């Protein structure tokens, strides 16, 4: 079954280019222009991966990720940040919010597709459970 990806970015251009890259990699891609729209989509449909920007109006990517993680059905969904912010503190904040991977823009098509496939490998993103 084709994996469903939700791409979130306030830039129409970035949204379309990331969508093109992921569709070319064989994913089913849906778009959201901001955090609120992304949450609405996540609540009405099922997604396997979220690819999000950080600097967005109304709700930034960090807050979006925290809210996604608070949803029981998305506690372990892989989340990839793609941001122009390249400082270590930005990456730290992203991981702290609950992202699985942080990539600095611009991202190459092959890299994005490879990262998306990697994140969708269950063994790499499933929550660690204690052994009996």
């Amino acid at each position: 079954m084709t994996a469903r990806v939700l791409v979130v970015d306030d830039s129409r251009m970035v949204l379309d280019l990331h969508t093109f890259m992921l569709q070319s990699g064989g994913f089913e891609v849906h778009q959201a222009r901001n955090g609120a729209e992304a949450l609405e989509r996540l609540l009405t449909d099922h997604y396997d991966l979220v690819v999000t920007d950080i600097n967005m109006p109304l709700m930034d990517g960090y807050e979006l990720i925290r809210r996604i993680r608070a949803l029981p059905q998305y506690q372990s969904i892989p989340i990839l940040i793609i941001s122009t912010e390249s400082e270590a503190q930005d990456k730290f904040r992203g991981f702290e919010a609950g992202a699985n991977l942080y990539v600095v823009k611009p991202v190459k098509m092959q890299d994005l597709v490879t990262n998306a496939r990697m994140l969708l490998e269950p063994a790499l993103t499933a929550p660690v459970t204690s052994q009996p």
Partner: protein
Amino acid sequence: MSVSIEALLRNLQDEDETTRRFAAEDLGDLRVAEAARPLAAALEDPSAAVREAAAAALVRIGGSAAVEAVLPALRSDSAPVRNAACTVLARIGPEAVAALQRLLEDEDKDVRLFAVDILARIGSPAAESALRGALEDRDVNVAAAAAAALGEIGTPAAVGPLIRALKANSWVRCAVARSLGQIGGQSAVEALVGLTQDDDELVAFAAVQSLAELCDPEASRQLQRLAAHPNPVLAAAASAALERVVRHRAIDSPSLSVGGIP
């Protein structure tokens, strides 16, 4: 009852939120230039109402006092503070352009990116001129943001500088392609037709999207070629663009056959 400027500045530090908010509002109403720095500091106030009042006051004060007071907030670690600073500078408008142009030379690429975003929101002729210079920025995200901003402003005079920026990396070429589609015109269409042959599929896709918007029949041959591209996503985008061009042409010239492609 009149309250002195000194008292208002003191009230801006008061423990009571309402007192701080009223002080910010009064300082803005009185357009007290010397209050610009304390008001800029109030952009970090714990109260949202005080932050909003301080931002509005800074816009009212305007001029170099407010601009220079707000600039350091663009380097804040807090995203809401940075966003507030961007909004204040954008609302101050043309008076902020000279300082923003100076920021385009800043060592920090994030600061240069903020400057580009604010200049785009101002959109005045001077802001547009500064953005043309930023097309040559050494950071790809800054150059791409400048290209995107010029497309949003949409002045035909930007087409030449945008075409010259096509030598840059593929991400910038994508932004240029999109902006050329927003501005339009003969030179833009010719450049976009050329970009459909770009080695990078991403750039070709961006060009196809823009040509779909412009609906120029000159693009038909290249779109037809791309409709057979091995990447099915690019091929589908080219087919959709071609359909749109043909449909648009049929509307313009009803005597032409919709199925016929020149």
